[in-house]
């Protein structure tokens, strides 16, 4: 990638301030300046609320008119200030001069139009080509983003394609007119790691062919370390630091950058299995079949087959897998939120599969969900949410209140928050509350289903530390469901790797993650961005698998 001074500046953001409308509140983005050159990839990194997405929307002229406006500064695209141009000129610039790839390939495409039509729309709007010429160009572009069987996919609707295929369609749509600048807003965040790797590679490949300038908005330092030429770090609407990839990753100047980079969990497993403790959970030959198996036709899906593993007291066991691997199905079976088709789930020596009354088991096994914004009832105070379970199990209100207060302190929240409502807390605080809600029941087993996936890295690091503390203090076992190998390496004693409903490999985290025996585990580790970088120590990691010897 060229970053020499001769290449032309494509995008120049000069002192941009974005205010809420009507003005009066604190600006969303304050006095941001950075340049992007031809063929260069600039990563804009920051946590949620840093203003990174708003900045990229401003470049596209897509800020919601009623809510936000650029109040100061200039945004120059090849020298033309996009803030001054007419609406018609801005429309002409979109797709032709500056294009965008969005985070959610599931929702970024119109569900009622074929994907071919949707790519074609760009050509219809911006060129005078005939229908036949356009079709040819669309099919060519679909081939360039490595979609298989393009004439069939042309006629497909978005819901008929996988997430990775949809994101390729979005990229084809963005790049078909060879724009000078590509804005990519978390384009791989919703994808599995193996798909993410392919998409990152694809963007890079097309960028090299066309010398496109790329602004890549992301919160993921793994991705950043793989693709960035330069990095812009943002925090709460302000630009914290800019520099080349190596400057920021090895020698960040600002404290915030240091904290952000060092919060990225490393892939090096840190814990060994617990020995000499009783089994809390034993899953034996678990099978879950969704749908019916008819006499002639078989519409059923095996979401889990022959799944067996054990969790000991005080142990954190990770179930690792991509979407569709069956990891959440297993978790739901353990909680009997769904009924297993076959097999046994033994909790504290008792098989819960044939049980009718689940009340007693429910207390022993508690669940922490992925999305802290939706897992707490918005109309109940924190105190009510925490005490409800205890009162259901016959504890009187005074005692329940006392225990709720204690548990809140355990998750580093003051007991005084009991009278407040969930919307008054940030995502990280809510997840602490959700953890307290589970822990207050004094369960033997916690199931954490992607419990830190929706959190920013710094918050994620705090919550992981918190879970570790709770395990140490209470001796609870944790079944930790995640797609993120880094997180698993941080916290798990043992791991179970799942693919397409089957366990492909299991064992001590140190063995499985450092010396994977199964091809799939190896592929997962290879696909994890920047496996060879030790973020916590600001240096390349030594002795990691999948990495070329230094």
């Amino acid at each position, binding site marked *: 990638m060229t970053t020499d001074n001769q290449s032309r500046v494509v995008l120049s953001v000069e002192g941009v301030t974005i205010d809420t409308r009507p003005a009066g509140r604190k600006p969303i983005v304050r006095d941001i300046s950075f340049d992007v050159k031809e063929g260069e990839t600039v990563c804009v990194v920051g946590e949620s609320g840093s203003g990174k997405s708003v900045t990229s929307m401003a470049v*596209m002229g*897509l800020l919601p008119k009623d809510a936000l406006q650029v109040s100061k500064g200039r945004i120059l695209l090849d020298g033309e200030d996009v803030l001054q141009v007419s609406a018609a000129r801005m*429309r*002409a*610039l*979109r*797709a*032709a001069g500056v*294009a*965008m790839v*969005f985070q*959610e390939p599931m*929702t*970024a*495409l*119109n*569900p*009622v*139009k074929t994907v071919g039509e949707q790519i074609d*729309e*760009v050509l219809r*709007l*911006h060129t005078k080509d005939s229908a036949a010429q356009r079709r040819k160009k669309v099919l060519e572009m679909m081939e360039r983003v490595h979609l298989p069987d393009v004439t069939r996919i042309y006629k497909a*609707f978005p*819901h008929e394609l996988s997430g990775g295929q949809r994101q390729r369609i*979005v990229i084809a*749509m*963005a790049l078909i007119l060879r724009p000078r600048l590509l804005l990519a807003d978390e384009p791989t965040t919703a994808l599995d790691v193996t798909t993410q790797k392919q998409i990152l590679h694809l963007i890079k490949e097309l960028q090299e062919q066309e010398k496109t300038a790329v602004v890549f908005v992301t919160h993921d330092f793994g991705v950043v370390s793989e693709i960035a030429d330069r990095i812009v770090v943002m925090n709460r609407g302000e630009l914290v630091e800019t520099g080349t990839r190596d400057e920021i990753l090895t020698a960040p100047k600002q404290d915030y950058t240091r904290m952000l980079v060092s919060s990225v969990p490393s892939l090096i497993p840190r814990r060994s299995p617990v020995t000499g403790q009783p089994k809390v959970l034993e899953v034996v030959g678990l099978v879950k079949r969704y749908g019916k198996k008819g006499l002639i036709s078989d519409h059923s899906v095996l979401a889990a087959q022959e799944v067996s593993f054990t969790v000991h007291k005080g142990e954190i066991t990770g179930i690792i897998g991509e979407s569709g691997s069956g990891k959440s199905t297993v978790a739901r079976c353990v909680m009997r939120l769904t009924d297993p088709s076959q097999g046994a789930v033994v909790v504290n020596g008792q098989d819960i599969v044939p049980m009718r009354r689940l009340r007693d088991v429910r207390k022993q096994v508690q669940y922490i969900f992925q999305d802290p914004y939706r897992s707490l009832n918005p109309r109940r105070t924190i105190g009510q949410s925490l005490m409800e379970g205890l009162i259901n199990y016959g504890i009187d209100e005074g005692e329940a209140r006392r225990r709720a207060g204690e548990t809140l302190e355990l998750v580093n929240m003051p007991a005084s928050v009991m009278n407040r409502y969930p919307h008054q807390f940030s995502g990280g605080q809510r997840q602490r509350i959700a953890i307290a809600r589970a822990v207050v029941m004094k369960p033997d087993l916690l199931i954490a289903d992607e419990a830190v996936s929706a959190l920013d890295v710094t918050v994620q690091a705090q919550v992981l530390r918190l879970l570790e503390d709770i395990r140490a203090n209470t001796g609870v076992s944790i079944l930790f469901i995640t797609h993120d190998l880094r997180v698993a390496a941080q916290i798990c004693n043992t791991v179970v790797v799942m693919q397409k409903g089957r366990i492909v490999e299991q064992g001590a985290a140190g063995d499985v993650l450092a010396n994977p025996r199964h091809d799939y585990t190896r592929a997962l580790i290879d696909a994890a961005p920047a496996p060879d970088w030790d973020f916590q120590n600001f240096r390349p990691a030594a002795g990691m698998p999948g990495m070329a010897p230094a």
Partner: protein
Amino acid sequence: MLGFVVKRVLSAIPVLFMVAVIVFMVLRLSPGDPAVMIAGPNATTEQLQDLRESMGLNRPLLEQLFLWLGDIARGDFGVSLVSGKAVTELVLDRLGPTIALSLTTILLAVAVALPLGVIAAWQQGRWLDRLVMAGSVLGFSVPVFIIGYVMILIFARYLGWFPVQGYKPLSEGIGAFASRLVLPTVALSFPYIALIARIVRTNVIEVMGEDYIRTARAKGQTERGVMTGHALRNAAVPIVTIIGVSITMLISGVVVTESVFNIPGLGRLVLEAVLARDYTVIQAVILLFSTIYVFINLAVDLLYGFFDPRIRY
């Protein structure tokens, strides 16, 4: 798509069969002897016996059901107990006005409500939106018979633009036919305009917040293109649903309108039949209305599949 259509159409058949059985049972299972109900309190035992014989009431229930279903299949709904005319003929005579009025009403309602709803959504929160929404509250709240009489008073009595009441079939000239339909159509369409406009507005606003709308804008699509090319079709499913519901409500609502405007339609026929306890006519009309409902629902289902490819299973 073809498989979806065939499946839906086939699934309507058992529903129609069930409807017919229920309609049959309602009369047979009502308390008391149907013959007594039909013949009235003053009939002699002999008259009742004759009636049972002629209606086949002394045969087993199942046999009666199949005989009756066979009659229906041939289009024979029996004779009116009051006038002695064939029910099929009576109903067909009255079908024209009702269908004409229902069709013009729903067409007018959709033609007015769709643009109103889109404009309100587009101007969300501004005065035009408020105006449309205030008007829709009014249109929904004022009963049809009040709107109807007020319109008769203004446009027929004072201005004399249209005839006060009545109905002329299309065969007597388009002018005579249309002029008598204008006032009832407008009066009847008010609540449906209000209802459909509201649903259109709500759904268009919701769709306009979706990610793919942002994608369309990012492609350089104009606001008009975003609305017509992306938003409307995605908002279509709930809108089609409410239009379907509106048609069924319309058909059951014509009883009132036909009375106000003195139109000899099905609504009036039902009213007369109920007052005269003309059971065979009531039975036939219930069956007809139910069949229409089944077909409207079928049409709505098929339209879902047309508008949203994800529904074609």
